[in-house]
């Protein structure tokens, strides 16, 4: 074979049919490696359909801790005859194709001389080993896990422990799974040189970490931030955020009498979802909704109302490929501008950009604080990759000293002592007016409206009175930059050759690219924006560099556009590197994008077949 041994550095793609139960098998594989202490990530490339179509699961294992997608597959597990063609093609040169050899492989597919074919008669083995069609189908998935256990040298004790945990009292399930694994592993050991040159080895890099998806983490953040009203309408890929919120509320939010300390409303559509959210926020609750691009499009009018009437609420946009329905099960960062400038008229909304589930958790909390502090809608701009895929992040932590920042809310006592209350008066000169909640005190009453009002809250059609209020609102929103988390900045050793600026889930791939550049002696400074309005550091950083590559996942370079509009940077110093086909970003896409703009820059090193990268699935 001649292939050098590579420990804890490989990528696997598993091709199956959706709805056949492969998800739990893939999860088992992930968990086993994770529990071996090895950094790992999983990307689920699934169809917008419920059952019967091709689906892929990609596992990246990296002792160095790189967890971005790596579309260069050492092993492809081809369990779906329908996609054999592309699956064979997707094995890197020198890699391994694992397939079900119960039926012979089409000779046309079996003809790559630069890869290794590993045929395991999985169906036949399971037909022999198990009873019942459904069981056989499910166990076939477990059996390929078994094959991989042998090929990759996974720790069987860990796998056994996981099964015992999962099925606890159901001994027969533990046994069935164990024997399916044995079927696969034994066959592999009997027929192939196990382990392969690429393999896993126990290390200690995941001890304080968890595997979690961003929607679950965001949901947990909402629970911890004290959100009590959630309104939503199902839409991929945001649905699981409310699934999570529901689950955690059921766990944590029932009072002694069984009554709920929260209310979750499945709205009739996104207009209603944001309407409920705004109504509840106006009523004094921490309220939020979660949606994806199409939903935000429908919320535009209401978002303008919330901006102008100054109602602080939180919107999670778990982005998918748009415009229109687009590719609902693919990721993109295409809503950056439509979030920030949502609504007709002059607006700008506060936004936070998490890069991973850990930040989904903390930014969910921050979003509520910002929304209430600045009395304005706050977006948490996530995406499918962050929201639905399995990420390894440090364990989530909570500071029990945290108390919500409700901003400037007047209590009954304060109102009692006031001569008069005016909702939109800039009493403190900071652009933020005091608000009151319904029902608290007669003096707190005012009339909220999206139509022209003066600083006293009175209806107006007067130019000066109108502009006075919208000018203050502009000032107020701009001032939010003071509480927006500072950008993440990491500097190269020594003067940088160039800088990369990025946002959200591009983080991992960009860092991996920077590490690769460093190995090649190219020094790259790094900045990731965490929110909008931009903290001052953002512009300062851009100004430090002759050229900043703005890496993002949309066609039109929306972050770059936002930087152009909202900082003073010269256009020639920010260049777009975009990738928008819907797959999670890879180091390769970053480096080849930069190489295209900068012929002198290093292209990504290659260990195999790259020609069709990203164009698959």
């Amino acid at each position, binding site marked *: 074979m001649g292939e050098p041994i590579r420990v804890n550095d490989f990528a696997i793609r598993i091709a199956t049919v959706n709805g056949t139960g492969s998800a739990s098998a893939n999860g088992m594989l992930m*968990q086993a490696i994770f529990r071996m202490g090895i950094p790992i990530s999983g990307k689920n490339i699934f169809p917008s359909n419920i059952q019967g179509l091709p689906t892929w699961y990609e596992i990246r294992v990296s002792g160095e801790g790189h967890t971005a997608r790596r579309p260069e597959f050492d092993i492809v597990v081809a369990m779906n005859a329908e996609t054999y063609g592309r699956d064979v093609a997707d094995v890197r040169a020198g890699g391994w194709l694992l397939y079900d050899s119960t039926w012979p492989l089409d000779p046309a597919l079996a003809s790559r001389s630069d890869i290794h074919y590993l045929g395991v008669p999985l169906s036949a083995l399971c037909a022999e080993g198990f009873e019942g069609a459904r069981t056989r189908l499910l166990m076939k998935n477990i059996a390929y896990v078994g094959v991989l256990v042998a090929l990759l040298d996974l720790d069987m004790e860990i796998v056994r422990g996981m099964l015992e945990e999962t099925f606890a009292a159901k001994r027969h399930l533990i046994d069935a799974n164990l024997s399916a694994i044995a079927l696969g592993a034994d066959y592999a050991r009997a027929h192939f040189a196990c382990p392969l040159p690429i393999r896993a080895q126990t290390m200690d890099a995941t001890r304080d*970490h*968890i*595997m*979690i998806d961003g929607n679950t983490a965001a949901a*947990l953040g909402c*629970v*911890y931030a*004290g959100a*009590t*009203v959630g*309104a939503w309408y199902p839409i991929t890929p945001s649905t699981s955020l409310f699934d999570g919120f529901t689950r955690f509320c059921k766990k944590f*939010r029932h*009072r002694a*009498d*069984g*009554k*709920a*300390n*929260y*209310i979750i*409303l499945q709205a*009739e*559509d996104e*207009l*209603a*979802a*944001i*309407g*409920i959210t*705004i*109504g*509840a926020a*106006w*009523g*004094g*609750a921490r*309220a939020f909704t979660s949606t994806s691009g199409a939903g935000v499009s429908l919320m535009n009018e*209401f978002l303008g*109302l919330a901006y102008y009437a100054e109602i602080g609420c939180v919107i999670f946009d778990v982005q998918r490929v748009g415009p229109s329905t687009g590719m609902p099960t693919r990721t993109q960062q295409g809503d950056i501008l439509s979030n920030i400038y949502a609504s007709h008229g002059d607006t700008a909304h506060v936004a936070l950009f998490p890069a991973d589930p850990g930040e989904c958790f903390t930014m969910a909390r921050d979003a509520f604080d910002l929304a209430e502090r600045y009395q304005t809608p706050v977006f948490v701009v996530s995406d499918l990759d962050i929201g639905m895929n399995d990420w390894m992040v440090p*364990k*989530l*932590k*909570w*500071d*029990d000293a945290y108390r919500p920042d409700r901003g400037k809310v007047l209590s009954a006592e304060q109102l009692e002592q006031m001569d008069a209350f005016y909702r939109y008066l800039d009493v403190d000169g900071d652009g933020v007016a005091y608000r*009151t*909640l*319904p*029902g608290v*005190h*007669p003096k*707190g*009453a*005012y*009339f*909220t*409206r999206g*139509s022209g009002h003066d600083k006293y809250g009175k*209806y107006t059609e007067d130019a000066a009175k109108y502009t006075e209020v919208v000018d203050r609102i502009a000032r107020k929103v701009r001032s939010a930059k003071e509480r927006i988390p500072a950008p993440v900045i990491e500097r190269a050793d020594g003067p940088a050759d160039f800088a990369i600026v990025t946002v959200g889930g591009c983080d991992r791939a960009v860092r991996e690219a920077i590490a690769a550049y460093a190995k090649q002696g190219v020094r790259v400074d790094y900045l990731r924006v965490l929110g909008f309005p931009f903290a001052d550091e953002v512009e300062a950083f851009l100004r430090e560099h002759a050229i900043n590559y703005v890496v993002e996942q949309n066609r039109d370079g929306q972050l770059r556009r936002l930087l152009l509009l909202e900082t003073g940077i010269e256009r020639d110093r920010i260049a777009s590197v975009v990738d928008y086909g819907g797959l999670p970003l890879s180091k390769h896409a970053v480096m080849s994008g930069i190489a295209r703009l900068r012929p002198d820059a290093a292209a990504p090193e290659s260990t195999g077949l790259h020609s069709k990268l990203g164009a698959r699935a």
Partner: protein
Amino acid sequence: MTFVKPAVHHKRLEKNALGLTVRDYEGALSTLCAGCGHDSVTAAIIQAFWHLSIAPHRVVKLSGIGCSSKTPTYFLREAHGFNSVHGRMPSVATGANAANRELLYVGISGDGDSLSIGLGQFCHAIRRNVNLTYILENNGVYGLTKGQFSASADVGSKAKRGEENRQQPIDPVMLALTLGATFVARSFSGDKAQLVPILEAAFKHQGFALVDVISPCVTFNDHVGSTKSYMYTREHYRELVEADLVPLRKPIEADGARAATTQVRMHDGSLVTLRGTEPGYDPTDRDRVYMRLREIAKAGEIATGLLYVEEGGADMHEMSATTETPLVEVPFEELCPGAAALDKLMSQFR
């Protein structure tokens, strides 16, 4: 039937149980056209709140956009008000109510606001049984945009410029009955004597209470040929059920003088007495109500009164098993599971 203009009771200075006069329930001066039906509805709302001795600041008033939707400014200046966006008041009201179930919610809308752009939200608020009095000031036109037909315009009704509407009207009352609304009433802005007790009952109702009020637009839809004019409404008016609310505070006296009454006990214990004006009309039998209303409509008449009521249905909070404490008042300490719980939870993610 002949129509009797209700006697206007000058109770200006009389005080209610809270020591407040009717004045304390007023709002800003109306900017609607002189004679607009909506102003009469406003007056009835003021009267009903005063009469029930509801503290103004414990009321939340909401609306969409339209002449009708402007009216919340004209009553209860001590109540928080929200003039939201066109057709979407139901969702805003739902959210506000979700946050604080203890306040009294009254939504004002128009036929354009509710039956065109807002039809979906209207229906779903009924389905969700949001505890909200929903007053639909129905004039058959879009007043604020100058007189286009709305979805409640009747077939054959003539616009001011002469065109005739050819589309079937959407009748909010029939719709609400079909959708399972638990309180359905119709009245006329010109009949305060009927409207005020209906509003009082609606305010007491636990759940969604629809009060459809024919409220003529004197500027764009009060001419001959219109079926939502004062004249037409008066001439085709048919009162089916008289309502009378006996608040909990007052001792309930048997009203021996009137027969054929149904009494419905509201959530807070007060009683609504319903007197059918025709034999056999039972305002608690949804299907018979539906049929009778269809007959009356076919006869070209407009059925009014507290047409249907069903007390004891679960409202949105009950269906959600929400705590009795308004969510806005639950202390953060009870909402946040804390660091220890999080730490424990983390083990599930390994």
